């Protein structure tokens, strides 16, 4: 079976279960991100793939070969370390050539391949430098070249961009993606930065507490987070405890936020009770317009905060009659709005016991998410 296959991997470190029954497949040529907050087990997983930590249970195979007991130097993997781990006593050229020398390649062959690789990462003129004489971005590219020059079956990247400044980070991640696609190399990329993960991955595995919460394409991940954890971790999401009716979402006792278009929710949910849901709403699914004085049965809200984001503006709204509930909305940067608005919802995600059960949506009525286990309360 080509690519990386991880099955039922687990690891306890210092008495704590760091990775718990984790299974994952990475197809050839695919870039997969392991995304999660610090301590979620993503780096431990990566280090187990690289062979630096022996797993307690489960198996790892690469291109159909079980590598579980194989030491790192004999695995077809190459790793880019968070701190780059460039050897400070060797020149850039020697850093890249080191692994080829170990393979006893003829000297001209080593030179050819190292130079080709340095050219690929735009460092042809820096081969004689020591790592300490390079900028952070350049060091990063040396680390990448050192990993790629061995033509590994699997490239492992451990938060490779976390030591770069914000602007450089965007440039380098695009470079990495471009090189990865050009070489068609299967890649596992560990990061805690959701923008990074969504921007460059074919698929993203969101991790928490040593488990994979959701493994999906970036767009799907954003559009339909499978659990409340993913919903809260990726992008902005307003979350409420509440009830759902065909004409809107009920929060607390009194406040009803209507759907932008009427949705026969109860029917779609199999006639079950509409109570006891966690309701998630993305800011772009919140529609606002200036409140009309005397309008009835409409939800209104006060603008508490405005956060400019350049081409759009984020509003933090406090619903009238439910002062401690916060609802976020995106509006155009120059939209002329007062500080009292009328609110409606175009799309909402309904979670039960932490898992996504329904997506309710104005355009195509109700869509029941097939992946999420439906449990009627």
């Amino acid at each position: 079976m080509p690519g990386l296959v991880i099955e039922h991997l687990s690891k306890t470190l210092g008495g704590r279960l760091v990775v718990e029954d984790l299974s994952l497949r990475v197809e050839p040529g695919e870039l997969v991100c392991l995304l999660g907050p610090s301590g979620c087990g993503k780096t431990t997983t990566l280090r187990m793939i690289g062979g630096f930590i022996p797993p307690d249970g489960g198996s790892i195979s690469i291109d159909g070969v079980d590598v579980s007991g194989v030491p790192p130097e004999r695995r077809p993997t190459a790793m880019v370390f968070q701190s780059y781990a460039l050897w400070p006593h060797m020149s850039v050229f020697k850093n890249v050539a080191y692994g080829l020398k170990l393979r006893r390649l003829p000297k001209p062959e080593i030179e050819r391949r190292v130079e080709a690789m340095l050219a690929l990462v735009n460092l042809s003129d820096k081969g004689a430098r020591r790592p300490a004489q390079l900028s952070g971005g350049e060091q990063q590219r040396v680390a990448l070249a050192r990993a790629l020059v061995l033509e590994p079956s699997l490239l492992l990247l451990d938060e490779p961009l976390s030591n770069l400044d914000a602007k450089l980070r965007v440039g380098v991640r695009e470079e990495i993606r471009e090189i990865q696609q050009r070489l068609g190399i299967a890649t596992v990329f560990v990061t805690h930065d959701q923008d990074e993960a969504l921007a460059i991955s074919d698929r993203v595995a969101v991790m928490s507490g040593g488990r994979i919460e959701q493994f999906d394409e970036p767009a799907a991940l954003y559009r339909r987070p499978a659990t409340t954890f993913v919903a809260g971790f990726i992008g902005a999401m307003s979350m409420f405890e509440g009830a759902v009716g065909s004409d809107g979402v009920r929060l607390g006792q009194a406040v009803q936020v209507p759907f932008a278009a009427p949705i026969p929710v109860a029917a779609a949910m199999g006639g079950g009770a509409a109570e006891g849901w966690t309701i998630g709403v993305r800011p772009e699914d919140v529609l606002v317009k200036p409140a009309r004085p005397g309008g009835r049965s409409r939800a209104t809200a006060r603008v508490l905060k405005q956060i400019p984001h350049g081409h759009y503006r984020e509003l933090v709204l406090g619903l009238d009659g439910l002062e401690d509930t916060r609802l976020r909305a995106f509006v155009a940067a120059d939209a002329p709005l007062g500080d009292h608005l009328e609110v409606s919802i175009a799309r909402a995600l309904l979670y039960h016991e932490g898992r996504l059960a329904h997506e309710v949506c104005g355009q195509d009525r109700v869509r029941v998410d097939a992946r999420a286990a439906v449990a009627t309360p």
Partner: protein
Amino acid sequence: MTTTAERTATSRLEAPPGGRPRQARRPTGGYGLGRVALVVGVCVLVIFIFGPILWLMLWAFAGIWHYPALLPQRWSLSWWRQVFDYPQLVRSVGLSFTFAPVVMAVSAVVCLPAAYALARFPVPGRRTMLVVLFAANAFPKIGLYITIAGLFYALHLMGTFFGVVLIQLLGTIVFMTWIPAAAFASVPRALEDAARDVGAGRVRVFLTVTLPLAAPGILVALVLSFLASLDEAQGTFLVGVPRYVTMPVQMYSLVSDYPPQAAAVFAVLLSIPSVVLMLLVRRHVLGGSLAKGFEIR
């Protein structure tokens, strides 16, 4: 370049007596008093540290020198000739430079693997080991040598080459273990992991990555152990005399039995290797390789 006096005068204007300037551009270099204190302090330090050595070097070339002349009344190289003509002294030089490298090498063989193990592996009782090494250092050498004599007689080590090596070795163990252990520990594991990742085995990783990066600390320890052997007199006297009279042992008799010139010549001879070694490792010593070794982790 302005003189110190001028600089002092101008900066006094900026900083009136008693008034601390709110913002000095550089903490000490920016205003007068600090500058003067620094210059005076450096001068005193130079005299305190180098004065005795230079004074002794003058003695090595003095023919006649009576108080209160600041320099010898007559210069001479005769004491150099005398020292080199005295076979016992020449032999002691040879002996010292035999023992020093041997002690250094044995110490390295005994201590370096242990230093690596203490730095990298969860050795059971690790902390206790480091503290035991330290405690051994606190017992005065003379007390040790008296009872060690009994042990050495029993092991037939008295008066032997190996006995001298052993007694000198004991003084090198603490820093030969501690300093390299700290040096090994300060090599980031990621650098070793990266080498294994591209295909190097454990031994090769050690030889091509860990060892070169820990080299400064190891070098400092080697040099210190070389110097310790070159400096050791009490134990060598006890174990080695009369067959193995090294330079420092010889130095004691020179000091009490000869005029200062003889001891001075000998002292200069004995210092030359030290100065060469100092120039070799000064950078690393100042860089903290030595200091790191003494914080037990």
